[in-house]
Each structure stands twice: as C-alpha cells, then as structure tokens.
C-alpha cells in the first residue's frame, strides 16, 4: 500500500511527539501540548466560525479548578476528575454561548470577556478555589486504576494521546458537513440564513464544542502541574490563546499548535528575564502580524500544498 504524503507527514509529527520526551523536559512539553489543545479548540471558533471569543480562559481555568478539586478533595480518579472538568466547561460554554452568539464582532468579544471576568471573580472569592493560593498539591493518581501518572513518561504519553484525540476530533468536526456549514456562516452569514440553516444553533454547538475541548485542556493542565490557580482564569490567558492562534495561523490544522509551542518556548527561555517576557512577546506578535498576515503555518501552507500536504 502506498502511503500518501499527508499520512507520512502526520506520522512523522506523531513520531516526533513520541520520542521528544527523551530529549526535552517532559513537563515543558506537556505544558505546550495543553496550550496547543486549548489554542486548537479556540481556533475552532475563530478560524472556522469567525467568532473571536475573549473569554476562553473561563473554560480552561474553571475546568482546571473542578478537576483539581475533584482529584484532591473528593479523591476521584484522574479520568473522572477530567470528565467533571470537561462537563463543567461544557455547561459554562452552553450558558455563555447562548448569551453571546446573539451578537457579532466586537460585541461578541465583549460579552464573552464580561462573563469571563465574572467567573474570574467567582474564582477569587469562592472558598473551594482558595483565592490567590489556588488548589495545590493535586494528586495525579492512577489512570483507569492502572497507569501511575506520577511517572513522567506515563503522564506524558497520556497527555499526548489526549491531545491527538482532541485534535483529531476538531479535524473531524471541521471536515464534516457540519464544519462546512460553519464555514458558510463565517464567510457569509445572511446567505447561510437565506439557505435555510439555523445559524444560531450551529454557532451555539460550535461554541459548546470549543468550550468543552478548552476545558479538557485545562483539566489536563491541572493534573500535569498538580495545581489550579487564578492565572488560568485571568483574562491574560484569554489574550494569550488569541496570540497563540494568530501567531501559528488561524483556520489551519497545526497552526494553533505551532503558535502555542512558540509562545511557551518564548516564556520558558525568557523566564529569567522577568517582566521583559511580555514586552518581547508583544514585539514578536507585532512582527508576525506584519510579516505573515495569516500566521506562520498559514503563510507556509501554499508551499506545503504544492507537495501535497495540507497543514
């Protein structure tokens, strides 16, 4: 059987993912993967429906809190804790989305930001989140009662598997007829309405999906770092995910992932520079927006398309 270039490319990326923890510090890679999944989920809305949400941190961060609380206080297994986190994010997404999709553009962004700020103050004040301190010392536990997640490689491969499945799900959604309708809505909403599509339902479903997968990323991150804190519900996190997506390239399969890794690498290598991190990040963002309008992957995609690879 002849493997297509596309398959080979995907397999090569997967192989890199499999061997990388032997060379690079696994927790760092896992951080990258969590943010990559988060950015990909965010891009489902931005790149494919054209909705810029500025409140995605609430799904990411709150799912983390719920997972951390479930694993620590209720001593639930990691898979159940993650499931609870995802459910919380999905429900939050349903409520937020139901309110927010009635507006477009800047108003949509503002509504999501306002709701996210409300959730931020809930996180500051609610007793179970422990305010400034966050939930610390979250046990990683045994996945399915079998896999000890305290082992760095075991948790790495678990996170990688979750990431690959999450990305595959997003890819599947985008390629499905449902995804085609989303694109139609993005490109010309009145026309989609005139064709008889119930646009609001499509948008809401896309929003809920995006929120749920963001929650998945947040839940996993809480287990990786054994910590859930205010940083992840703060609006900075909402801004960061926009940065990652635009940097990598919105509306592409691997763009958000690349963007997430670029941002995480910058943060990591500049951690000693203190407050300079944000300034350098800003400069890189400005450069990228000026030089590659469609993000790194977006700019490279015609080149990849020539050799038969869709990125």
């Amino acid at each position: 059987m002849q493997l297509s270039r596309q398959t080979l490319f995907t397999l090569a990326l997967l192989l890199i993912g499999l061997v990388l923890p032997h060379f690079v510090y696994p927790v760092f890679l896992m951080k990258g993967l969590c943010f990559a999944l988060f950015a990909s989920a965010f891009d489902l809305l931005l790149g494919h429906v054209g909705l810029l949400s500025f409140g995605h941190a609430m799904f990411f961060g709150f799912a983390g809190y719920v997972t951390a609380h479930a694993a620590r206080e209720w001593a639930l297994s990691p898979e159940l804790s993650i499931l609870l986190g995802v459910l919380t994010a999905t429900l939050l997404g349903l409520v937020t989305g139901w309110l927010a999709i009635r507006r477009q553009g800047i108003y949509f962004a503002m509504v999501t930001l306002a709701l996210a700020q409300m959730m931020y103050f809930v996180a500051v004040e609610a007793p179970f989140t422990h305010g400034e301190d966050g939930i610390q010392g979250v046990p990683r536990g045994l996945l399915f009662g079998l896999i000890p997640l305290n082992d760095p490689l075991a948790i790495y491969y678990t996170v990688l598997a979750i990431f690959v499945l999450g990305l595959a799900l997003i890819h599947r959604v985008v390629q499905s007829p449902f995804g085609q309708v989303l694109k139609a809505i993005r490109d010309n909403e009145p026309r989609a309405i005139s064709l008889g599509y119930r646009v609001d339902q499509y948008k809401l479903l896309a929003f809920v999906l995006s929120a749920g997968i963001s929650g998945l990323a947040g839940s996993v991150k809480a287990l990786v770092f054994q910590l859930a804190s205010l940083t992840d519900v703060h609006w900075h996190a909402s801004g960061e995910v926009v940065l990652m997506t635009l940097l990598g390239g919105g509306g592409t399969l691997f763009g958000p992932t690349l963007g997430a890794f670029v941002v995480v690498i910058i943060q990591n290598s500049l951690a000693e520079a203190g407050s300079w991190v944000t300034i350098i990040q800003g400069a890189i963002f400005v450069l990228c927006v000026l030089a590659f309008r469609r993000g790194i992957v977006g700019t490279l995609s015609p080149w990849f398309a020539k050799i038969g690879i869709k990125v």
Partner: protein
Amino acid sequence: MNKSNLFLTAAVGLMVWSGAAQAQFTDNKVKIGVLTDLSGTYSDLAGQGSIEAAKLAIEDFGGKVAGVPIELVTADHQNKGDIGSAIARKWYESDGVDAIFDLVTSSVGIAVREVSKEKGKIDVNSGAGTSALTNDKCSPTGFHWAYDTYALANGTGNAVVKQGGDTWFFLTADYTFGQNMQAQTERVIKVNGGKVLGAVKHPFPNADFSSFLMQAQSSNAKIIGLANSGSDTINAIKQAKEFGITQSGQQLAALLVFITDVHSMGLDVAQKMLLTTGYYWDMDDPSRAFAKRFAAHMNGKMPTMVQAGVYSSVRHYLRAIEAAKTDDGPKVADKMRELPIVDFFAKNGHLRPDGRMVHDMYLVQVKTPQESKVPWDYYKVLRTIPGDEAYQPLSESTCPLVKK
C-alpha cells in the same frame, strides 16, 4: 529503569569506583536556587538583595563545599504560585538544583513546598510569612527561617493591646498570609481581653485602599490592623494619613513591616510605629558587619530580615552539607536539624521537627525624624522576645511530623 537512571547509576558507580570523591553528590556540585520576586511588590524586601545575600554566603565558603563547587541559579516567580511551582519542578527535575531559598510570598512558598516535599528536596523559606509552612504544610525537608505570622502576631499584637489598643478592625490581604496573620492576631487580642470589631479583605496586590479605610474608620475601632505587607502596607498607611484617619485618633498597627518599607514611607509617616522583626542591622557588631558587606553590593541599602535570613539559611545549609558530605535532601535536612545555628542572624537558633527555625525576635519602635542620626537609623529595640516565647509552641503545631 530508564536510560537516564542507568546512566546516573553508572556515573555514580564510576565515581565510587575511582575513589576520587568519597562524598555523594549528584552531578558533582551543589546547586542552590534563589526563587524570589524580582519584578513585583516584594522585590524590594527580597528580590535582588536575597540573591546578593546568597552570593555572600557562597563567597564565605570560597565557592566550594566538601570539595565540590557551589553553583547559584535564580529566577523570578512574579508572586504567582503556578509560575513558582513550575520553576521549582524544572529546577529539581531537569537542572539538578538541590535546594531552594528565599521563596517570598506565602502562596508561592506553599506551592514550592508541595513540589519540594514530593521530590525529597530542601526548601528553606525566609521570605514568606504563613505559619502553615510549619503546620499542615510541613515537610521533612522543608524549613521556615526568618519569621512567621505567629511570631509577628505575638510580638506586635501583644504590645499594641497592652498599650490600650483593645478594639481592632482588620484590613487583610486576601491570600494565605493575610488570612493567617489576621487569625493569629485575633487570637492574641482575645487572649489579652481585646475585641475584634470587624475585618475587610482586599485583593493582593492593591493600590486603592479608600473604600476599605472608610469601612475601618466607621467601625470606630481604636486600632486598624494591617494584615498585609510590602507596597500594600505602605499604600494603606499613606492613604490613611491622607484621609486624616491617623490624625483623628485611630491608630494603625502594621503587622508585617520590613525596614525597606519604613525607608520608602519615610520616618515622617512611619514614626512611632511598633513592629516585630527577626533582624535589625544596627543591633550589634556582627549584624552591622554583615549589613556593611551587604550594603556595599546593594548601593547602600541595608538588608531586611528576609535577605539576612537568606544568608543565614544558605550558610547553615552549606555547613550541613560539609558535615554530611552529601547533597541528598533528607540526609542534609537531618544534619541541619542536628547542628545549632549561631551567626549574626540567630545567636542561639535551632531547627525543630516541624521545620521552624527558632531564634529571638525583636519588638522595635520606629524612630522619629529627630532621633534618627544616620541613614537607615530607623529602629529602637524595645524588647528581645526569646525564641521559645515568640514562636508557636511545638505542642500546638498541627504538623504530622511532630510526635505527640
């Protein structure tokens, strides 16, 4: 066993076999991390000064301990628990750091404590206040060095109530440290027959205290207790003065004040304030000698108790390594508990099973501008509080390591 473990075992085996080093050191050096606030609210009282203090301690050992070189790494945790714990994890797992010092900010201190405990590495906290570090969050390899909320409440709280300040209202920074500080001061007030009329929590860090100060004013309490620190305390005190609260008879009791805070407030604002500290530079010859060395590296700034504590704790850690001839966390921790601490910082210090470094504390009063003769001449020492009286009795500690 994975590859890196195999490699490590082989390397250790080779080392033992060659007989070059009898001592047991991972990667043949001692690596010390100073994790502090280099850009935020606490960068003045810890920050760069803590790094200099650690450097001085390493310098005193000639850069080597038990025949292996000492290396120093530093990072900024930005007062965020998640950043702090991520750095600590990376330091322990991939950079071979053996012990972490300073750890200002209670939320970061606790986050790093969790990681250190899990990894069996040493963390010595000089910067954070919360007494949780030696209670619920205690660790066999974790120590708390310079001061804690219990000792501050005990020192300042007691003194203020005894002067007649028997009704209190708290402005509390909304995180572990503030809550802890408030609860422990309330205990002291009640024991002395005082009353707490109310409390309000403010976000950390905060710039505008007007609404909180108004609440405090309308409570008519004699004392407004500030269960916060750093720039929060400075802002609250300055704004209280601007609102005329202090002039109208209510008094402020700042529960955690560092000498750098007094310096930036100025004696005009800070004069006559009572406070508790673990170190004052102008106490005696040894403390002055250290302060002079420190100031030479820091543009004339005098060390705070946190920075002096970092020197003292790094020195003690290195002494323990010298005695134990290893950098293995639990073994060094045992040695640290065994050795007494005698230096300019602690004249008769020792480490308890819960990780508390017990040493004398000082109740001081801020001088008036007329009394102050030279730069940084800020405190009058009113009383030396013996260590055993200042700190929480071991029998009250909720630390599971303490045998009852």
